[in-house]
């Protein structure tokens, strides 16, 4: 499986999706002009990964900020991982935010409430 490495820009997040290194990570800001263009290849990657995943999957969301259309794609990604969990695989979400960033923390809690996955909340330093 070919890994995805996307460098962060002013409006696009840094993304690492690497099966060999067992890393799925999002960092920085996400407010792209066309979120579909950015996230469709990511969704495709996750779908392919979910067919034969690693024994344990951790997804690290280390967003500083994401807009509402990105939220939709995060949910869509997590629904694939949710399916994986339902078929017996171990999946955990690490949701990172800065100590005083209540907005990102709340966004995580809301997504957790509509997705059947375990969320671990962690502090970004």
């Amino acid at each position, binding site marked *: 499986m070919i890994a995805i490495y996307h460098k962060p820009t002013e409006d696009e997040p840094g993304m690492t999706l690497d099966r060999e290194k067992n890393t799925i990570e999002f960092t920085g800001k996400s*407010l792209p*002009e066309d979120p579909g263009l950015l996230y469709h290849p990511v969704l495709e990657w996750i779908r392919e990964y979910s067919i034969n995943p690693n024994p344990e999957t951790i997804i690290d969301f280390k967003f500083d900020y994401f807009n*509402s*259309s990105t939220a939709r794609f995060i949910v869509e990604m997590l629904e694939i991982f949710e399916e994986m969990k339902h078929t017996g695989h171990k999946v955990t979400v690490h949701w990172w935010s800065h100590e005083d960033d209540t*907005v990102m923390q709340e966004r995580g809690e809301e997504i957790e409430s*509509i997705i059947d996955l375990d969320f671990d909340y962690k502090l970004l330093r």
Partner: protein
Amino acid sequence: MKWMDFEEFYRIIRNDNQSLFYCGDFSDEITIRLIDLSELAFSDTGEGTNIRKKVSFLIAECFQNVIRHTSLDCRIEMQPGGRGFFMTRNLKDGHYIVSGNLIHVDDIENLQSRISNINNMGKNELKELYLKVLETGGISSKGGAGLGLIEMARKSDRKLDAAFHKINKQCADFYLQVYLGKEDEQESPGIDNLERSCAVKINELLRENKVLVAYQGDFCQESILPLLTMIDRNIAIRNSEKATIKNLHHTLVEILQNIMHHGYVQDGKTEGLFAIGIVRDSHYIDAANFISNEKVPVLRDSLEQLVSMDIDGLREFYKKVLKEVPRSPGAGAGLGLIDIMRLSRERPVFRFEQEDEGKTLFYFNIII
């Protein structure tokens, strides 16, 4: 912003190609962002790089003027209104760049005579004076060599427009304007003065409403990103509370991208106007843009539904939309609006004013 003031402001600038108004902290990073934005306005007007470069240069000089020459005493005395002012208006017949800053009344005479001295010189004399000042130095106590004014006159190839408006016994507003006509234009079309650009009127309107940044023009990703950086900077300096900054940032992104995605497109542009300012201990955002008439009923209904909900109702509705709405392109576009409503401190105000058979002006005001 008071609706009457907003209406007046909009009436003045609605036909501009692009305009930007900035009040508050003037730092170098903001200068760069202003230049980014102004270059965008030129990218589709077919104007040469020569005028573009001149505009970038003049923006930087005007901005520097505000940083260097604002009287600290006046700034303190006139808080919170004692802010620098900067505007650039790109109109069909040319480009205005105006700075406004508070100076001590004792400095008026000196500045006035320097400007009229420059205005009385021809091209060659200005060049000579420039070289002389460059050689002999003559750095003023404010760190400027007086070169800025000379260069502004040289680059714009027109007389500098200046005005001094005394505010009280100590302080005065000093307006400095440069005008750049279109490249093929030989003579000035009339008198270049501050009345034509409405700079004084606009500054008074914006000051009265404690506006920090206002923008009129095309809403696309290339204009939104520099605007966001400018506003983040401006606000971070006055307010260190991260949650406030985040909430504002989030609301702004959603409002600006809503205009970009759903505004009325004419000649390849999605034009709109927005302003952010201070009201009591909060911030307000005003936005106005055209939408096509057929979108009005749906938008009006969803706004009315959202403003009738309380915070818990909005949260549940947000989660429902996030989970259930199909993700085909354009579907469930209401998520951003719900987000905006959730961050609002007071009930948002909106209105629709039909412009013609095709489009309606949609106005939205929110306090964060």
